[in-house]
Each structure stands twice: as C-alpha cells, then as structure tokens.
C-alpha cells in the first residue's frame, strides 16, 4: 500500500508538470488558434538555458530563474509571434501548424548544435538540500511539493485571466474573428503577443521543473509534448480543469507502469509509448470540434499534362544515371538517399496534396517497408519488394481506420502519436511469433540490407542502387501523375474540398480515405526499402518521428500538389550535404536547414515548385533554349565521365549556363507578350485565355 502511494506521489508531481505544459497548450490554442507542436521544445530550450546559466556560468538560482522566465522566455515568445506566425496568420490552421512543426524540428537541431548531446548535464532539483517531509504515510520531496504548488497557482491564474479579465476575452475573441476584434477597438496583435509571452513562460516553467527528473536531452524533452497534448486533449484543448484531470491520468499511468509493469523484454517500450497510446485513444474517444470559423485554405492542385509527366519521369531517370556516373567515393553515400527520400516525400502528394490528410508518420511507414525488405529481400528476390510495399500499405490502412474520425491538425497529432508508438515500442521489440509466423523488426540494433537482383544481375553497388531508385521514383512519379489525371485523383481532391459534398454526391469518404492512406504508405514503404538498400545498414532511429519531420517540411515547402515534389524534396534534402565538411558544425548546419526552410512557408504558401515552374517554363517551351540546355548538360556529363573537368567547376558551369538560358528564354517570351491589359478589357483588347475565368473567380471569391 505504501509503495502504491509512493508511486502516486511521483505520478502526481509528474502530472503537475504535464498540467503546466498542457495548460500552456490550451492557452495558446484558445488565444491564438495555433496547434503548438513546438511548445515542449520551447520548454526544452528554457531548461537548457537555465542549465547554462546555473551549472554552466554559475549564476545564483533566483537570478537565473528570473533571467529565463522573465527575460528569455518572453523574448522568445515575442520573436516566434513576430517572425513565424504573423506571416502565416492570414493562411489556414494547417499552415500555422506547419510553422510549429518547423520550429520543433529546428529547436531540436539547434539545441543539439549548441549543447553537445554526448555530454551529461545533471540539473539539481529545487531544495535538494532540504530533507523530504512526510505527509501521512508517504514522503514528499520539496521539489515535488513545489511542482504541485506551481501547477495549482498556474491553474488559478490562467482561469482568472481567461474568464475574468477583458484581456482574456480579447485574446479569445481574436481567435474567433480577428477582423471583428479589430472592429471593436481591441488590438489583435497585442492580444497575440500577450498570449505568446504567457504560453512560452508556462512552457519554460514546465521544462525547468521536469529537467531534474529526466535527462537533459533535446529530443526527449521536446517530446514531452506528447504527454502534455494527451492532457490537453482530455480538456478538448479548451477546458483547463479537464486538462488537469488528463494530466493526472497520464502522470499516474506512467508512474504505475514503472512500478508494476512485469519484467518482460517486450514491455519496457510500452511504458515509454504509453502517453502516445493514450493520446491516440484520447483523440478517438473525446469528441472534439475545431473552433468555429472558416480557417481553411485550399491550395491549387495543378493538372500535369501527359507529355510533361513523361518528360519529367525521363529526366528523373536520367538524373539517376548522371549522379551514379559522376559521383565518387563518399559522395555516393552522401547523395545516394536523394531518390529514396524523394520517394517518401512523393507519398505526401496523393495523401496530403490531393486528399488533404496530414500525416506525420510517413517516414515510419518507410521504416516498415525497410524492415520487411531487409528480412525478406536478403537474397534479392524482387517479389520481396512488392511484399514490403504491401505490408506498409496495410499498416497505412490500419492507421487510417481509427484515424477516420480525425481530420486536419487532429489527424496530424494522431499520426504523430502513432509514429511515437512505433519509435519507442514497436521498433524496439525483439522478434516474436504470431500464429506461427516469425515477426522480426530491428532486432534491437541495426539491420543489414542488400540490393535486389533483377534479370539475374545483382544490384549491390551504390551506383546500381542509385539508378534503380531513380527509375523507381520516375515510375512512381508517373503513377502519381496518372492518378491526378484519373478518376480516383479527382475524387480525392473532391474529398479534400468538402467531405460532406463528397458523401452527398454518393462517394464513400471512408473507402477513399483508407485507400489513399494505404497508397501513401505503400509509396513511402517502397521509399524506405530503397533507402535501406542505399544505406546498407539501418537502425530504428533513422525512421523516427523527429527524423521524419524535416522530410515533411521540405515536401510542404516544395508544394504538396505537385508531382515534381519527389525529385524536388530529394534534391532539397540531400543537396545541402554539399556543405558537409570534416567540422561537426557543418553537420549541425545541414540539420537545421530544413526547419529554416519550413519557416519560410509564409513567403510562398503554394510551394516553391509553383515558382520554379513559372521561372523555368519559358526555357522548357523555347525551341532554341531547351535543345541548347540539353546539349550543355550532355556535354558536361561526357566531360565529367571522361574526367576532363572537376565536379565543382562542372556544377558551376552548368548552373551558369542554365541561368543564362533562362534569362534568354524569358527575354524572348517577354518581347512576344503584349502589355498588361486591364481586367475589364480581357477578351476585348486581347483574346480571352483559358485561365482568365479562374483568375476572375478567385479574385471575386477573395472579396
């Protein structure tokens, strides 16, 4: 009994921290409408800053606390509001969430850069020198007591702020209707700033209080957000008392699992994954609605032409051949993942681009594909690749089934929870038998992966695998383009635009959603198998949620509606590896880049591919520039293969030639184009164009 109570105290003090962090989430959501994935990361940063000031520079505790809570945290909150959120304020809920995912990914990378993860940083508990006191049969440390007291104070303060003051009302009103809030004379910008300052301070309090109990590790602290989100979902992201109740459930569950879970090789991961499982369950059980209001922005999904898709696929395959022949030594390893990761990014195109389903577990699906291929494809049997795709697709359909009730950002949260369950538990399991079938995963370590054999030839070298992946990506891109042109693709877009309308027209949203999840997971699984072939050895870490976030961000930045996203994301993801040098800071820089790119979303919400296409289309259509460009590329390739020039000089030369040709083609089209005609004269002074109708319709719709 005493033991039970003792675990209860530990659980309650953890719960208090989850409650503080979770109420920060609720505060940010009800006052700014932002689904703050980076809330835990902000707390993590605060904990590191606090460690730096106290243990690192020897500041006294009260001074360091004041510096972190009253100066650094508010400044960080204001910075996030100004730099990240204001540019995407006019976009939808999903775009704001992407910014937070970028911030989460960026903060983890930045913290690992600043504070070397291989150094242990113990942080002492508060009042560690005072003897714990006894409350009835249990012993309570002063740190635990302090934590619970802080949680109660935070609860009371927040409740009073939100429900009893005009600033609180103004903050909530700003989420409801920003424009109307301005009309009443309130200041929406100021309301958001106050909300961000308070939210970051709460995250900082939570981070500093929990850091002594767990290791000071960037990723682990950032993913406390899973527990905090579970608590917040109990409160449906709006009720503070229910959030506290949720925090108690999560905290005690973790504590009792630690105490009472039987010793068994399959179960330790379960304790780590428990908050994520509970989050998944809470998402499904608690009916939640979005805040009322129209907060969705539908991006365009361009229709690729048949010829364009074929040319694109051919150039992807050609790019593979060029890379395989031009790269040497370590570069083959560094740039090899281009096509496999591109494939994982391509899986977002039907799933998120067409059907509007946000999933944060695509790299985990890739992990499943990789594991299946590693075990079944060890001797290169090509059918094992099909099995890998199939198993990943089944896994995708399995997530889709429970997740059918979720949409938008809630779906993103649910899939993130699923990815965490895979990372922390499933991928760490030793092999086991189900109905006589042996199921092996990562064997609690790393797996060797070999290449496939095709037509009697074994594709085992890095060069062969690059070409093989490129051909696979080319075929998959063609398939996705065909999907977009076909019936199913149009249905998916209809589903995205309005699920209700889709159902009333006789479509079955359930079937379509399961199918597109399976399709996306299948493509990702193929990508994972290729990724494994390229890397030769794989570990579970390479397919974790945190590893998958940059892939998601790059794909979003590229533009999710574009078939070219595969090649773009692969290139954008591996391209910066050029910067990799012997110094460790170069690796850190490359790790931060995707997050930085993601934060630029506000500047091109429709994706970079739209812009690239606009800039390069004149070249592709030009009768002189295009053949010349092809010739330059072919010549450069021959020169390189013959080893006449170095790689760098060649790259610079080709880029210069391409840019010059673009200028040339652009100047030719510009001289051919007629001057700007006012809208009311379209169709009179110049011929009516096919796209004019849409331009007008969109202009009017925005009014």
């Amino acid at each position, binding site marked *: 009994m005493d033991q039970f109570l003792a675990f209860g105290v530990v659980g309650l003090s953890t719960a208090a921290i989850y409650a503080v962090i979770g109420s920060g989430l609720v505060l940010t959501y009800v006052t700014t409408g932002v689904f703050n994935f980076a809330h835990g990361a902000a707390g993590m940063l605060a904990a590191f800053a606090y460690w730096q000031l106290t243990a690192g520079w020897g500041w006294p505790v009260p001074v360091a606390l004041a510096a972190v809570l009253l100066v650094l945290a508010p400044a960080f909150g204001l910075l996030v509001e100004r730099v990240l959120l204001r540019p995407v304020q006019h976009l939808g809920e999903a775009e704001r969430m992407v910014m937070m995912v970028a911030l989460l990914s960026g903060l983890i990378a930045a913290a690992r850069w600043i504070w070397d993860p291989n150094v242990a940083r113990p942080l002492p508990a508060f009042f560690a020198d005072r003897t714990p006191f006894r409350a009835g049969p249990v012993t309570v440390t002063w740190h635990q007591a302090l934590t619970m007291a802080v949680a109660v104070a935070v609860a009371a303060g927040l409740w009073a702020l939100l429900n009893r003051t005009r600033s609180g009302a103004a903050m909530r009103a700003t989420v409801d209707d920003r424009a109307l*809030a301005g009309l*009443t004379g309130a200041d929406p910008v100021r309301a958001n700033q106050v909300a961000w300052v308070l939210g970051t301070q709460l995250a900082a309090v939570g981070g500093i209080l929990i850091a002594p109990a767990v290791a000071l590790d960037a990723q682990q602290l950032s993913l406390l957000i899973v527990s905090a989100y579970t608590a917040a979902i109990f409160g449906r992201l709006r009720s503070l008392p229910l959030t506290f109740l949720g925090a108690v459930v999560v905290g005690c569950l973790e504590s009792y699992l630690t105490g009472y879970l039987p010793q068994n090789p399959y179960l330790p991961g379960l304790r780590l994954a428990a908050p994520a499982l509970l989050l998944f369950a809470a998402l499904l059980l608690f009916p939640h609605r979005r805040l009322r209001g129209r907060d969705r922005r539908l991006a365009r999904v361009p229709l690729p032409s048949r010829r364009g898709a074929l040319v694109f696929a051919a150039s992807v395959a050609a790019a593979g051949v060029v890379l395989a022949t031009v790269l040497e030594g370590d570069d083959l390893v560094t740039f090899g993942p281009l096509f496999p990761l591109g494939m994982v990014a391509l899986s977002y195109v039907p799933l998120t681009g067409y059907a509007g389903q946000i999933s944060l577990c695509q790299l985990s699906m890739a992990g499943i594909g990789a594991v299946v291929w590693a075990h079944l494809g060890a001797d290169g049997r090509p059918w094992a690749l099909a099995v890998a795709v199939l198993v990943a697709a089944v896994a995708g359909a399995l997530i889709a089934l429970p997740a059918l009730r979720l949409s938008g950002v809630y779906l993103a949260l649910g899939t993130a929870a699923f990815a965490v369950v895979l990372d922390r538990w499933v991928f760490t399991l030793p092999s086991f038998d189900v109905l006589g079938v042996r199921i092996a995963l990562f064997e609690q370590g790393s797996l060797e992966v070999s290449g496939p054999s095709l037509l009697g030839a074994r594709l085992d070298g890095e060069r062969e695998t690059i070409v093989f992946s490129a051909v696979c990506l080319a075929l998959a891109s063609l398939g996705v383009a065909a999907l977009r042109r076909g019936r199913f693709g149009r249905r998916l877009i209809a589903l995205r635009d309005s699920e209700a309308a889709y159902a009333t027209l006789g479509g079955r949203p359930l079937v379509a959603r399961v199918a597109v999840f399976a399709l996306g997971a299948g493509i990702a699984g193929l990508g994972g198998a290729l990724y494994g072939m390229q890397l030769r050895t794989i570990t579970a870490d390479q397919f974790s949620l945190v590893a998958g976030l940059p892939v998601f961000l790059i794909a979003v930045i590229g533009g999710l509606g574009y078939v070219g996203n595969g090649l773009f994301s692969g290139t954008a993801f591996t391209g910066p590896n050029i910067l990799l040098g012997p110094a460790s800071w170069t690796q850190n820089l490359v790790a931060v880049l995707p997050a930085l790119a993601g934060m630029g979303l506000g500047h091109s919400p429709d994706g970079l591919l739209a812009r690239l296409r606009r800039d390069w289309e004149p070249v592709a259509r030009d009768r002189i520039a295009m053949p010349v460009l092809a010739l330059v590329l072919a010549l450069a390739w021959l020169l390189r293969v013959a080893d006449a020039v170095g790689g760098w000089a060649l790259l610079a030369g080709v880029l210069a030639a391409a840019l010059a040709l673009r200028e040339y083609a652009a100047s030719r089209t510009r001289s051919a184009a007629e001057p700007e005609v006012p809208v009311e004269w379209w169709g009179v002074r110049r011929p009516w164009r096919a796209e004019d109708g849409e331009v007008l319709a969109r202009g009017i719709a925005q009014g």
Partner: protein
Amino acid sequence: MSALLELRGVRAAHERITVLHGVDLSVRAGRVTALLGPNGAGKTTALRVAAGVHPVESGRLLLGGRDVTGARPRDLARAGVCLIPEGRGVFPNLSVRDNLLMMTFTGRSRAEVEEIAFARFPVLARRASQTAGTLSGGEQQMLALARGLATDPAVLLLDELSMGLAPLVVGRLYEQVAEVARQGAAVLVVEQFASAVLGIADEATVLVRGRIERRGRPDDGLRADLSALYLGSSP
C-alpha cells in the same frame, strides 16, 4: 448640417478587379442613409472602406472633416466608427457576457454596456452566460447590434442586418437603429431587403456596378427605380 463621415472619390479593388469606381458618399449626424443596389454593386466594400477594413486605391475617407484615409480599423473604432459586419457579428466561442465585455474598448464601462444591452434586448440577459454561437440567428444579430447601441458610436455602419431573419425581428431591429440616429449618430445601412430600411431612412443612395446611380429621398420614384433595377430592366 455637415457630413460626419465622407467618402470622396473612393476607388477600391479586390485583387485586380476594381469594385468601386470613384464613389462619393456622405453621411450626416442624426440621419439614416440607406445604401441600396443589386448584388455585387460594391455596397459591402463601401462600408468596409468606411470602417478602415478595406484599403482604398485612391480617394479619401473623412471623419468629422479630418482625413482618416488608411487609419486602422481599431483606431477608427476608438474614434467612434462602429461597423456591424455582414453575417453574425459576434464572437461565437465567447459567452454573451464576454461578447458584451468586448464592447468596452471604446469607453463605456462594463456595467453601462450590460445595462443598455439588457434593457434594449431583455432576451440577452436571460442568455448571459450562454455561448454566443448557440444563440438563435435573431438573438445573435441582437447581440451584434447591441454593440452599435451600447458603445454610443458617432457613426454606425450596418451590413445586411436582415440576413436570414424573420421579417418581424427585422422590423424590431430597425426600430432600434432609428433610435440610435435620433440620439445623434450618423447611420449608414446596407440592405438587400430594401423595404425594411426605406421605412426609417432619411435618404437613399443607389449603387450600381461600383458607381453611384442615384441619390435622394426614399420616395415612390426611387422605389420604382429600385424594383426596375432588381428585376433586371434598364433603370
């Protein structure tokens, strides 16, 4: 009496499409002006320009003779301009009481606002702690209009007050609007349901395709013109 709120030669556009082609409009204190016209004439845009929500391409916006072109909606609101926008102009996730609290930024105290709102619309007092989004359409519109009554605005701008409401409710809401004008506010009303507003309007302006087509007293000639306009024959 001079104009309290004035639009001078205002041009405004949605993206590249010009919606207002040099509109002159003035609203005098103590008068109700109706702004009428068919769909897409630019009525709502004119109101939004007057409240500072929509930017002008050229032209000027004057408040009490002062040039306030380009001022933020918040500053105009604090200077006494009150726009009740189209659709329910309430915060749906806030309680009725919190919605009323949001009306105190322009000077009146919370107690005064609640007293006026509850006196004019007793049903709101009974719903005080209910979430505004769960009120009926008429009750939401009363709550929205309460801002126009309780904040003592110098200029009251109303957009489609009647939308989706029963005629009986519309009549009662417009009685309140007339009362605001009698207390000295300049009132500009945009309304599709012309007969509802012509009963209380002192003057009427007809906007067609972004240009002022006609202005004058809301007499039979104007009514005839309007019906011709709405029914599609040439005005």
